[in-house]
């Protein structure tokens, strides 16, 4: 299946390689570099490339390319999903997935890769199992290790793989037993020029942080589960119970994990929290244009909109922007032609406004395309779909855990066309 893996940074240096079968020379990456050159933007490199003897499947994460070499037929998604799992694991271990971090922990990363695949077929991808075999570094441990020469490798052999619940190890103990759930919803929307919704849906995710002793069996139920249009689960969730009773019943992994993803798509259910009045125009005569944007609250369910930010990818011809913002600050990056207006909290009494002129390159015809606005926002203590967790029950253990649910709404891919 997966033959080799190369990690490549944005300048095209291969800084880590791992082979699970016999060694394949680095020259195979030349085909990739060629495609990378052609694509201009790194996002546009085709994820699957065909070379005379191999197939190259790559992902782009955190300014790094994870390039795998394949020799025979294998579902491309299988490889892509695995590569993302590798990146997730690195992030999980070291807090971020970047060239610097990987170079600093090169031995640990190499050991991880060794455990994750056997002969190119995934062996242990559960972070719980991996952490039993190779302990993630902590500051204290690395100090102790340098002094005593102790190792990061677990001295007990991993048992997680042997159990029927491979995502949880046995013998977990905490003095404070707690289970927290974050319901995070993102609004994906496309609004047209006049502000009407072209398309809107809500993508939700329930992130859990469970620190409970022993083998608890949890049941999470909702007030209004019928709202959920489509769901996907962490492997710990029992399908049958969801199908018959619409409750989430599971033995949780230890620590942080994503319990479920869901989707609410019915258009009329999707509340759009802000409206945007905008006009961006360029004049036929003279090298200039005008920009005027106002943002106001729409359906906020009585909550405050925070972290409001507008990002605009300007046409290439726009040289500079001379604007005044009634609230927040704006920056215009000349190289990438990105205008960012960081507003912060939305005050319904005094609506934020950004107004002024744009200078375009003299001599070029007026840019004909109007850029679209990408909106970022956050609303605390609200799940915009109205989803509510009604209760969390625990079976199988005697103690009483602390329980908590937090809601958060964010803008996902929220775009206003002009």
């Amino acid at each position: 299946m997966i033959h080799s893996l190369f990690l490549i940074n944005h300048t095209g240096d291969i800084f880590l390689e791992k082979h699970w079968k016999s060694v394949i020379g680095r020259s195979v990456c030349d085909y990739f570099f060629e495609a990378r050159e052609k694509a201009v933007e790194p996002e546009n490199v085709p994820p699957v490339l065909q070379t005379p003897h191999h197939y190259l499947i790559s992902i782009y994460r955190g300014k790094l390319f994870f390039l795998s070499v394949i020799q025979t037929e294998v579902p491309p998604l299988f490889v892509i999903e695995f590569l993302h799992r590798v990146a997730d694991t690195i992030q999980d271990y070291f807090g971020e997935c970047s060239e610097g971090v990987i170079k600093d922990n090169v031995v640990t990363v190499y050991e991880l890769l060794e455990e994750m695949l056997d002969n190119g077929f995934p062996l242990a991808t559960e972070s719980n199992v991996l952490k039993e075999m190779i302990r993630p570094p902590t500051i204290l441990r690395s100090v102790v290790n340098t002094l005593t020469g102790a190792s990061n490798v677990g001295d007990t052999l991993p048992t997680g793989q042997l159990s029927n619940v491979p995502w949880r190890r046995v013998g977990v103990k905490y003095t404070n037993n707690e289970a927290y759930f974050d319901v995070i919803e993102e609004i994906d929307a496309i609004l047209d020029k006049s502000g009407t919704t072209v398309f809107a849906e809500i993508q939700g995710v329930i992130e859990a942080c469970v620190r409970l002793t022993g083998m608890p069996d949890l049941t999470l139920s909702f007030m209004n589960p019928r709202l959920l249009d489509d769901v996907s689960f962490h492997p710990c969730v029992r399908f049958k119970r969801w199908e018959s009773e619409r409750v989430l019943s599971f033995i949780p992994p230890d620590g942080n994990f994503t319990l479920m993803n869901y989707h609410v798509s019915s258009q009329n259910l999707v509340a759009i929290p802000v409206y945007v009045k905008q006009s961006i125009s360029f004049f036929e005569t003279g090298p200039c244009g005008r920009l005027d944007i106002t943002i106001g609250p729409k359906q906020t369910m009585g909550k405050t909109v925070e972290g409001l930010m507008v990002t605009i990818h300007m046409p290439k011809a726009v040289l500079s922007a001379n604007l005044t913002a009634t609230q927040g600050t704006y920056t215009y990056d000349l190289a990438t032609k990105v205008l960012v207006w960081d507003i912060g909290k939305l005050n319904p009494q005094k609506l934020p406004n950004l107004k002024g002129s744009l200078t375009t390159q003299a001599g070029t015809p007026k840019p004909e395309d109007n850029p679209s606005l990408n909106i970022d926002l956050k609303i605390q203590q609200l799940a915009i779909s109205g989803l509510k967790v009604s209760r969390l029950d625990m079976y199988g253990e005697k103690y009483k855990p602390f329980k908590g649910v937090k809601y958060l709404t964010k803008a996902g891919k929220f775009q206003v066309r002009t």
Partner: protein
Amino acid sequence: MFVASVIIVFCLFLSAEKEAKTNYQMLDSNKDSLKLEAMKRIVAMIARGKNASDLFPAVVKNVACKNIEVKKLVYVYLVRYAEEQQDLALLSISTFQRGLKDPNQLIRASALRVLSSIRVTIIVPIMMLAIKEAASDMSPYVRKTAAHAIPKLYSLDPEQKDQLIEVIEKLLADKTTLVAGSVVMAFEEVCPERIDLIHKNYRKLCNLLIDVEEWGQVVIINMLTRYARTQFLNPNMNVNEDEDEDEEEKEKKAETPAMAKRKPYVMDPDHRLLLRNTKPLLQSRNAAVVMAVAQLYFHLAPKAEVGVIAKALVRLLRSHSEVQYVVLQNVATMTIKRRGMFEPYLKSFYIRSTDPTQIKVLKLEVLTNLANETNISTILREFQTYIKSMDKDFVAATIQAIGRCATNIGEVRDTCLNGLVQLLSNRDELVVAESVVVIKKLLQMQPEKHSDIIKHMAKLTDNIQVPMARASILWLIGEYCEHVPKIAPDVLRKMAKSFTNEEDIVKLQIINLAAKLYLTNSKQTKLLTQYVLNLAKYDQNYDIRDRARFIRQLIVPTEKSGALSKYAKKLFLALKPAPVLESPFKDRDHFQLGSLSHLLNAKAGGYQELPDWPEAAPDPSVRNVEVKDSVRAVGTVTYRDTGALWDLQGPKKLEGSEKSDSASGSESGSGSEESYMLLFHANVYQPSLYNWALVSMTLHLVLCLQTIAPSSALKNYELLHRITGEGLSVEYCFSRQPFSPDANMVAVQMQFTNNATADTKNLHIEDVKLQSGMRVKEFSEIELLPAGETATAVMGIDFCDSTQAANFQLCTHTRKFFVSIQPPVGELMRPVFLTENEFKKEQGQLMGMNEITEKLTLDMKCRNEHTIVQRVTTAANLSRVPCGSDKECRFAGRTVSSSSLVLVTVATKEEGAAQLTVNCEKMVIGTMLVKDILLALTQ
């Protein structure tokens, strides 16, 4: 300068030398911390792709090191360099051989893993032996490692294939989820053609699937897709494959005579099993699993059921862009065959300005495939906003898409054409050029109506510079020169002037235009043509020179010119068929979807063709297994597919069902559930020849079921009287058999009798009114019930353990009848098998409020044990529990929806006095059950 650099190089060399030395020394030291430090340095070198092979002897010595991390790093090193240093690598083998005998399963597994990763041919026999031994290891984890080792050995020495297949066969029979995925992976790499090995394990694999780890699921599902294609019949064989929804009426007409000839299609229960057990995996978090299930449904499911995958695939579009890329490619292929499936999700394919170009283009492809008469206006409006995008490649693709919509949907052709013509005045040349190319294709469909557009385009030749566009315009003018007789020669004049500066494709089209004009209007253009041909004669490009010579010979009559010149006009001005603008994804579905080959549209190495459906189904009995190989071995705890909360405590319930299996002696399905399904099918379909086997099995099973639940003749209830039903009468009974599509439902068997003189058609259920929580699984529509005939069907109702009625309408093609089904409390349970001790233990836990006791005097006729048992089991669907005392009869069951235990005891005393005790967690059920049983025993 030179000297300095030499010194620097030398110093570097020295320090490298020194480092290597220290590594050596550190490895030789007896301090673990130094060894570890050295090994870390070496592994870091390997990771960076530097050569560290010269340290091999020093490293191998440490293979027996006590420190676990050193040992692990040594393994890493060994696996990497063993191939290059075969002789030295052999030194380490004995360590692993010792490891293989270790009492700790994890050490055995890791020894096998490293041993099999050492690519040294000499140890092949040792590996073979180790794999064989590990394949029968006690520990499933070691067996899993053995499965992983198989492809490694196979790639090292393909001659071991036959022996390895034996091991695979053995491991395929393994009943643990841990092994299943890995062994199927080995099967796919070593012997994918040996489909016969799967037969016996098919049902087990289907049943285990949900509990297998995600990567294994992908491999198993892909393999089972291929398997199903060889073993089952095409579920759509009575439906024309390539029709669309609007042709359904036609299809119906065509079907009626066809149906008469063909045998009615009956889906193999095993086929159904696969579809049913893979469906929940659409909810997986792993995109590869979702895609695998989606392709399985696309390739195997009946047309009506494929739709379920659309939602899951659309969900994946939120994922990483690489995932989107692959999913969209597959969706594009699917939309060509089954457009209706994705139509509701049209808007999910709308494009954002922040999408990468390759995603934009794929989404555009999908949108174009989805376009039809009803949604075309929305799509075109959407396309209009795309044309304004900054991403010019994307704009070009949009214009192409508009062209395709216009050719496919006649109604909007003029609108599209007008829109495209407007784009001709766009400032961006690329946009104009692309529009010209597309307009050219559209005009070809009906040129006579659009001569003004051709004129407009002729004007463009002055400005537009993109060669492809210029060539297209020239071709158009040449082709339709008769529609623009005045302009064409003028264009040629201008072109002749600029001929030398044009690109090659434009030059070819100028020659072409000249030739066509010469043939239609030689008076005006003779000289111009001569001029152009002369210029071309001395062109640098030989294609152009050849073309010029060829055309001159063909059109200018000379003595030497052959017979062909007579036909020149016919040759050049023949009516050309309009181009068909096709999706590049057409017919890609002959590759298995989701595969690498499908993505590349070319066969990748090791790709297994997806076979065509067989004409006649191969013998289904090959999948039958002996009873002792029942699905789940005792002790294998299932997790995800069970609803019960306390599964982990032990498979009590399963044990029960297994005992019942073994009671039946030999049995058809691999688990009881499958057999029940056979029964269900046999009930619904009339037995054709093919069904005979099933029926005989069913009979057998009914017998065995009766041993558990000695239910006497089932009581029939009336649902619809003959008179109110205008000739249609319906009776129902609670068949007391598990309802296979959903274990939480009570099976209701309905018998329809048509007493009228006319046929009744389309019997089905509508407008179900239920109390909250209740659910109904309708029976599949009965298309035709001829006069005087009887038909049966089974539907499932989840009463939520209450005796609330389920109300619904029973519809025929002409009438609707309001009916309702109210269950007696005794039908809300299913029998379970308990031993006397288990009964007592459970009863002990259900005391107090959960126990109801009632004194009674038995009916005169009902004073022997046999009658008591008969009456109780008639009143309630319970099974008898063996009992030591002859004064007591005990019965046990569980409620169907919530699986609460129901325990009944009847203790007899002197002179017909008796005491009835019911223990049930659900008090309401308990109280009602007491009433019912009391009634049954006293009357």
